[in-house]
């Protein structure tokens, strides 16, 4: 069940998720989460697991920040949260992939904090912000942005792509990124801003980027 599913399971759903311009998402993974929520459907859960668990493991091991055992533990934590929080997933407001990404991100931050034994007394959820899609245009912007992002990502200069990977996939702060790459903090900051600009992440918001 955990092994590779039928052909086309990977890659295709990812793009179709973003090609739905607005409204209720009907992609495979969003429907999967809805079935998990409504019917406690273990088959749907297994399918979701076989697609996302290997991505969560890759996310955990980015930059070798966690051991393989911790990565497996993270996969378990995230997938248990998927089961537990499925009822709160709203396909009108978010793609399932973004939803599971934010869960994985929060769980990983909590694991980082536990491992360094930093007694923050706070979990990532306590200090984060759960977007509820209150802005009617948000889903539209996000989906259009992601289609472009994939197109533009391949043209991104290597030094900018590398920094984005450290910041997102490895979860490193700008200061940590600067220290690891032996770059001034200001250089990291400006490369991040350039990358965000090139990827046109904010193109629809009318920000002063």
């Amino acid at each position: 069940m955990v092994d590779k599913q039928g052909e086309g399971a990977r890659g295709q759903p990812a793009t179709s998720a973003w090609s739905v311009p607005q409204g209720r998402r009907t992609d495979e993974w969003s429907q999967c989460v809805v079935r998990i929520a409504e019917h406690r459907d273990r088959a749907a859960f297994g399918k979701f697991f076989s697609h996302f668990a290997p991505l969560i493991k890759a996310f955990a091991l980015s930059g070798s920040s966690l051991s393989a055992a911790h990565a497996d533990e993270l996969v378990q934590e995230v997938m248990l949260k998927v089961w537990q929080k499925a009822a709160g997933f709203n396909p009108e407001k978010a793609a399932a992939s973004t939803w599971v990404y934010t869960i994985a991100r929060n769980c990983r931050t909590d694991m980082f904090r536990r491992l360094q034994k930093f007694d923050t007394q706070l979990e990532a959820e306590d200090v984060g912000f759960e977007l509820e899609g209150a802005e009617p245009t948000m889903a539209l912007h996000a989906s259009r942005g992601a289609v472009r992002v994939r197109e533009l990502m391949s043209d991104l200069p290597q030094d900018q792509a590398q920094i984005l990977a450290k910041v997102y996939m490895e979860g490193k702060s700008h200061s940590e990124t600067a220290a690891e790459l032996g770059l001034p903090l200001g250089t990291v900051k400006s490369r991040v801003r350039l990358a965000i600009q090139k990827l046109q992440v904010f193109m629809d918001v009318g920000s002063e980027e």
Partner: protein
Amino acid sequence: MVKYHPDTNTLLEFAASSLPAAQSVVVSTHLQFCSECRQRLAQLESLGATMFEDAQPIDINPSVFDNVLARLDEVQEVHAANDANASTMSWTVKQIRKGNLDELDWKKVTRSLRIADLGEIEGAAEFSLYHIAEGGRIPQHNHSGTEMTLVLQGGFSDESGSYHAGDFIIREAGDIHAPTALPGSDCICLAVLEAPLRFTRWHHRWLSPLLQLRAG
């Protein structure tokens, strides 16, 4: 109308969950005031999700799935237990987010200034709320680290401008200012003074102590 926002770098660190806890509280409280930044956050999160989806998948041992299946039914109880163990800091952050500021532990400092010290938290040398009576002034001061401030109620002005509810302000180390509450209503601000040592997160302590020494 919110005029001052976190910059792209700060919002991205927040979106990627690499901002320390104290600073994250300030940013997330700003987001309650600001739909523009909520949109920006949504877009930064979808960029993160895109990179996550495009990662090279790594095979999972089937026993991991079996373990998860075996634990599905215990999930609800674990969750309830966590709520019961919620920390003081977690409670404090909830009060701030809800605006229940009277519940916090305020100390009178001067005739026009009260401060609630919110306690020790990752990333901060000081994490506190300031209550400045209308027209009152905070003595001129500078700081050793970056100070992040969010106006929760009322407003204040200093040498650089005037700020109102929802505004997010950064003052770099060494900046000197003397904020004065605007007339009309008392001003309440949430403020974080960055811990002096920048490299406190786990990557450096755990993986690269040499790097930490050099960086420090």
